[in-house]
Structures are given as structure tokens and as C-alpha cells.
């Protein structure tokens, strides 16, 4: 790529951000961007200027009926989606598809070739009164894939799982966390996705009776039970 060609595209970045390039030009610029780190960097720097433009618009209150109409539509859509879901199998049955006849923490570890690099139990803070009991505990594992998973909790409350070194997800996949509690597998409500740095986190909340936390890739909207092998498994305690 010649310097002249680079400069030609660099000068078009503003028009590209403003969505005003001629038909066909945007695609050509995107092809140039794929191989030009300097233009990528300039585009990232310039983007906030474009993002600022809608913030200058006089603020108006949308009509209440618009909100009502939208929410009615999405609630109906959600109901239909729930109604069309395939018949639920038992959660433990689904897990057995991936983890053998009886899903246990150690069995799951074998399935995902889990390498427990570290199980860190440490305490921060005092033996506080009330709340979650005061002690902040973290359990951490490193998977064979390089992914690191850490589950932190305050006593038996405020559970949270944080992942790092997560591979980018396909656009039609999300991360879903699961806990084994008193022999039953429960889905964690908060689905999550990794950021650009390969980090992802979600809140588990109540950790009472939880012996294992794991994470799987699932379709958008999550699943009633895991449909893929865990990418992370953390044994608690």
C-alpha cells in the first residue's frame, strides 16, 4: 500500500463516520481499514466526535403511548418465545449429555480437561456482622484453554464469577453460568458476553449450598439447561 493511497483513505474517515460516503466507497474503505492500523487508530480517535452529534439535539420526551406499545410488543414476543421453546428436559439429564451418567464436580473436571492451577481461598476484611458474613473469598481455576475463572463471594452472598482470556464469541452465542446447589443444577439469570479484552463477568448472588460454578456457551437468550460443554468449572470450598 502506497503512502498516497493511505492518505487518500485517511482523508475519507470523517465522511465514513458520518455515513456520507458515496455508494461503494464505504466498502472500499472498510477493505483498506482491515490492513491499516494507522487508519484504525485514527477512526477510534475520531469516533467520539461523531457520537457527540446526537447529544446536541434538543431533548424531547417520547410519548407515553410509544413506551406502552413497545413494551406490549416485546412482552408478547417474549411469551411466544417461551411458548415455542422445546419441551424441557431435566436439568441433570441435560448435563449428563456432557458429563457422564452422574454430573459431579470431579467428573465435570475430567470432561473439560480442567487444570486447576490454583484454588485461592483468602480473606479480606474483617469478620463483619450482618450482610453476607463479612469474609470475601475467591476460588480461582485455570482451564486448559488458558481461560481463568474466579468466583468471589462475601460469606454466602454476593457471588460473582469473573473470566479472563475468553475467546471471542460467535455473534449468536452468549455465556451462561450454572451452579450446582444441593445436587441440583440451576441457571444463573444474568447472561453475559466477553468484552474486547476477553474479560467477562456475571453476578451469581446467593451462594448458599453452591458446590460448583460453571460456564457454557449458549444461544441468545440462554438455555434452560446447558447445551454445550463447560468452558469453565470452578469448585467451591
Amino acid at each position, binding site marked *: 500500500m502506497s503512502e498516497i493511497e493511505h492518505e487518500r483513505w485517511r482523508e475519507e474517515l470523517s465522511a465514513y463516520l*458520518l455515513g456520507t460516503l*458515496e455508494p461503494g466507497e464505504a466498502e472500499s474503505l472498510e477493505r483498506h481499514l482491515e490492513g491499516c492500523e494507522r487508519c484504525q487508530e485514527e477512526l477510534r480517535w475520531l469516533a*467520539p466526535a461523531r*457520537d457527540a452529534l446526537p*447529544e*446536541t*439535539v434538543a431533548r*424531547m420526551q417520547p410519548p407515553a403511548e410509544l413506551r406502552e406499545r*413497545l413494551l406490549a*410488543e416485546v412482552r408478547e414476543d417474549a411469551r411466544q418465545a417461551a411458548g415455542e421453546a422445546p419441551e424441557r428436559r431435566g436439568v441433570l439429564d441435560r448435563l449428563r449429555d456432557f458429563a457422564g451418567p452422574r454430573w459431579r464436580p470431579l467428573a465435570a473436571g475430567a470432561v473439560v480437561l480442567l487444570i486447576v492451577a490454583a484454588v485461592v481461598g483468602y480473606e479480606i476484611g474483617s469478620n463483619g456482622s450482618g450482610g453476607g458474613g463479612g469474609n470475601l473469598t475467591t476460588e480461582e481455576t485455570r482451564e486448559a484453554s488458558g481461560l481463568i475463572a474466579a468466583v468471589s463471594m462475601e460469606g454466602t452472598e454476593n457471588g460473582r464469577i469473573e473470566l479472563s482470556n475468553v475467546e471471542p464469541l460467535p455473534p449468536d452465542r452468549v455465556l451462561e453460568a450454572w451452579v450446582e446447589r444441593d445436587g441440583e443444577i440451576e441457571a444463573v439469570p444474568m447472561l453475559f458476553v466477553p468484552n474486547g479484552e476477553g474479560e467477562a463477568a456475571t453476578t451469581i448472588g446467593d451462594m448458599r449450598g453452591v458446590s460448583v460454578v460453571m460456564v457454557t456457551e449458549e444461544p441468545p437468550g440462554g438455555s434452560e439447561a446447558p447445551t454445550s460443554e463447560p468452558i469453565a468449572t470452578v469448585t467451591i470450598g
Partner: protein
Amino acid sequence: MAADRQKAERLADEELMPLIGGKDPEAFAVLFDRHGGAAYSLAYRIVGERDGAEDVTQEAFISVWRSGARFDRARGSVRSWLLSIVRNRAIDALRAGAGRAPKLNFDDEAILEQRPAEEQTEEEAIRHETAGEIRDVLGELPGEQSQVIELAYFGGFSQSEIAGMLGIPLGTVKGRMRLGLRKIRSELAEGWA
């Protein structure tokens, strides 16, 4: 698997998106309450009439509901992503003849704040203050630069269309656009990046 409203309200936009991808209406409602005003205002700014702005806003949010899982946080904030969807749909509506020609100035103070100030949340107040600062930055741009930026962003005109409308060479349009946007970027507060 729906998160209740209270729980959803505590989540950042980026954390709401997987829930919306999972068809959680409460997470969607929180997103609308946070950004519906900005979306509707932008749509109105572009199409110039209320019914059209409602249609555009509704289409944009339904698009988000159906494609929430496609949000890529590495490419910007949820708000920027959402407003870019609104902008593109409003421009489409404008091109389809659903709206009027765009206004050519940033000074909309006359219709600012249709709600009493006490109804604003703290976050909205901060956004309003920030919007005021950005308007100041834009106000300092040479008129010829803000004009081409407005025609491009709010009017959806191509560079050659702008050149024809203003009777100036295409290269001049490109130069004004480039200089104007770079100046806006340079003047933005640190926290905006």
C-alpha cells in the same frame, strides 16, 4: 429467567444487552427508559415530525430487541450503537419521503426541556450539561464546517449531494467535513473519549 425490574435497573447498559438478547422485557424497559428520550429526540431532529419520529424510534428499539445479542461492546457504547441505528433508520425514512428537509442549525434551545427540570434524573441532568458543552464546541466551529457536518449526519446527504446543494467543489466539502469533525474531537472533554 427474566430479571426483575429492580435488578435490571442496577445493571450497566452493556450488562442489559445479553438479557435483552435473552428476551427479557424488564431489561428492555430499562434500556428504553434510559435512552428512549435521546432516541426519539434524534429521530425527531432528522425526520422533523412527531409521527415519523415515533415510527423510527419504535423500529429502532424493536430492532435492538431482536438483535440484542449482536451488540459488540468492543466497538462502542450501547447508547452510541442504539443512536446509530436510530440515525440510519431516520435517514431511510427521510429518503423515503416520510419527513421534511433537515434543519440547518444546532440551536434548538427554543424547544429544549419540555419537561420541568425537577422531573429529570441526575443522569439526565449530567447529560444535559454535557450536551450543552458539546453544543458550545459545535457553536465555535466555522459555520461552513458545521453546515456540511449537519447536512451529512442529520440530513443523510452524500458528499457530492452536499457539493451540489451548496455549489462548492467536492474537495471543499471533504475538507470542511474533515476539519470540522477533527476540531470537534479535539475540543471534546477528556471524559468523552
